[in-house]
């Protein structure tokens, strides 16, 4: 019996092997004009947020230009240096994209050592001739969603999977790791909420990780329990827990980096808006500059509301449903930020 099973499976395997034809793969690598090496941050692909935005930028570039790419997902920060160096030393690679501020320290040394390689870093500035840096004024976009959250908590509003609690005026913030970058999100958000009304409570907490949804959920549970109407997260993959919490409490949440009502579509009934950060455009633009042979290096691109680097977008389930006065108020504050009439703080001390 055993032998017959064995023979049968060998037979099937052999037939399949003969019937299957090998498809030529990967070796087309050399044919593309430009090869890009991209190293993500530790949140990794599938965070439906920061890293996935970078990925969509490179996918867009791949469909528009004749490029190939290799990507690497570091398990820990310690892997980043090695991965940067592998790509930097690879003669086939024309541009190394470093996604996230954790790359900064290693890139300073590697950009110097591999001075004929081109690099791009997102979310940090590396001052070197062969590095283009992209940073975002996240506080501006966060002010916008904070403004929205503040307006919502002061209104009685129910739509899709959530409704506000008219008794309390509370809006929460959940961060990933406690760094000055994420503090910009927090500061902008709180300033936006306080722009509506100084008395709005703005609890905030950090999960200590970019990929820990269960902690994110616990924190958000506490906030909704205390009466928060809206919780904004800036925590990468950890934010998935915030959305789940919003769904179970039937309140609202605000996404980050990507339009999360699309990227985290299963939670679109509570994602009233997202603070998008066009990491995809930054990656796309940097690749375009290499393809067009216009890469200069040493540039710092500081992108805010005015440059469409950040923006507040309404979630797909809420697009035509938010009250007009809220939408108009948001539009006003957006213009005032661009015109410089509202000064958005980028750290908590300036609140």
């Amino acid at each position, binding site marked *: 019996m055993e032998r017959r099973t064995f023979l049968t499976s060998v037979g099937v395997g052999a037939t*399949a092997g003969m*019937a*299957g*034809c*090998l*498809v030529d*793969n*990967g070796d*087309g690598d050399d044919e593309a004009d430009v090869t890009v090496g991209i190293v993500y941050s*530790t949140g*990794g692909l599938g965070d439906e947020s920061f890293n996935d935005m970078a990925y969509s930028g490179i996918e867009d570039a791949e469909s528009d230009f004749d490029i190939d790419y*290799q990507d*690497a*997902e570091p*398990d*820990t*920060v*310690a*892997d980043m*240096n*090695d*991965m940067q*160096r*592998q*790509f930097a*030393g690879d003669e086939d690679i024309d541009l190394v994209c470093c996604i996230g*501020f*954790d790359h*900064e*320290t290693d890139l300073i*040394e590697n950009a110097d050592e591999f001075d004929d390689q081109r690099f791009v870093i997102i*979310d*940090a500035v590396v001052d070197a001739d062969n590095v283009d840096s992209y940073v975002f004024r996240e506080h501006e976009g966060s002010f916008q969603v904070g403004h929205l959250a503040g307006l919502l908590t002061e209104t009685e509003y129910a739509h899709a999977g959530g409704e506000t609690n008219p008794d309390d005026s509370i809006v929460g913030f959940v961060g990933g*790791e*406690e*760094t*000055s*970058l994420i503090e910009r999100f927090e500061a902008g958000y709180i300033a936006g909420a306080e722009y509506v009304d100084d008395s709005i409570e703005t609890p905030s907490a950090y999960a*200590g990780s970019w990929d820990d949804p269960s902690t994110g959920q616990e924190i958000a549970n506490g906030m909704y329990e205390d009466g928060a109407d809206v919780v904004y997260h800036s925590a990468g993959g950890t934010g998935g827990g915030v959305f789940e919490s919003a769904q179970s409490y039937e309140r609202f949440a605000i996404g980050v980096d990507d339009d999360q009502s699309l990227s985290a579509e299963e939670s679109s009934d509570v994602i009233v808006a997202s603070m998008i950060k066009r990491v995809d455009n930054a990656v796309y633009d940097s690749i375009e500059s290499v393809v067009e042979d216009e890469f200069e290096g040493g540039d710092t691109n500081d992108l805010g509301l005015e440059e469409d680097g950040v923006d507040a977008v309404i979630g797909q389930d809420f697009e035509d449903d938010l009250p007009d006065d809220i939408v108009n108020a948001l539009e006003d504050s957006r213009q005032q930020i661009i015109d410089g009439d509202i000064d958005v703080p980028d750290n908590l001390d300036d609140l």
Partner: protein
Amino acid sequence: MSRLPTSIGAALDRLVDASPVERIVISIASLLFAVAVGAVLVLVSGFVTECDDPFVLLPGVGYGCYNPLEVYWTMLEGAFGSSSGLGRTLQETTLLLFTGLSVAVAFRAGLFNIGTQGQMVLGALATALVVLELGQLVPQNVVGMVIVIPVGIAAGALAGGIWGMIPGLMKAYADAHEVITTIMLNFIATGVALYLVQNHVGDLTSDSVLTETIPSVARFPTSISDSRFSMYALIGALLVAVGISLLYTRTILGYELRTSGIQETAAEYSGVNAKRNIVTSMTLSGALGGVAGAIYVMMVQYRWQSGIPALGFDGIAVSILAGNNPIGVIPASLLFGGLKSGSVAIDLSLGVPNELVDVLRGLIILFIAMPEFFRMLGKWSGFGSDPVGASGGEEA
């Protein structure tokens, strides 16, 4: 029904009585089996995903995205085939030697130190801070290096040792189980280190939580091009493994440490200060974890940065795979190091998801560890022709 336990018993008897050669053959067979199972898994997952450049087309089934042969080849070549890959493998091996030994030392004394991670994190921080200060005071040459590196290692060992001593004291004098206390101390260690670096001793201008980069005088001299690996660190680690093996087999202290952990009352009865020896074992274990942190700072990252890899937890697996034998830790950490390095290579050059590579790594470790695990279990439960169950499941 009654036949089933007998046959299992017979199998366990057989396993426990296996000669060293047989055990090696079993390990190799397990490895091959794991590779085969993994290959099927890779192939099958290749059919359920979509990709731009599939390598095979099966009519009626669809396109297969991942070529198992390519995956294994990349893994092998990535681990040993290039200077940077080999450097990465040996770097990882060196660190795992220390964390594996840290866990093994405690195990041999009947203590389960899950706190190696925390001891390593604090050891790493202590090393980084000490060499950052000391590096400015010494001459920037070989003489400076000879001063700074040993002092850096000592600082790591001291910090790790103290952090290991705490659960030792709690175990010996307050009867607090070391599994619980070491797990909790891991969180405290990470939290304390994060707080200190973020608010006081780190590079406060950076968005990341990190210290300044250590000066070149505090970096281990590199031995392989394209890599930060240093032969000195590996040789040191091997010597420590041999030293610990000798400590436990050839010295009175080693014997006392073992007896105190395994049978405290018996040890006390025969005039050994068991409580003090428990503290000594945990301190030694913690110091080894601290040294792993020191090497990590001075050979791998050149700074302390939050998100230190879980080498301390990998050390537990390394130690168990080695049957808690200090010499066995050497091949076990090489296996882990090679797998880690190989999986980085796959990530860099193939479109195979990280998670799948982790599964492959897990399979290989699981398959190799299982026979040894059952052997330990069988020995523990008194199977085999020499049923001495009191050895704590260790290998001599």
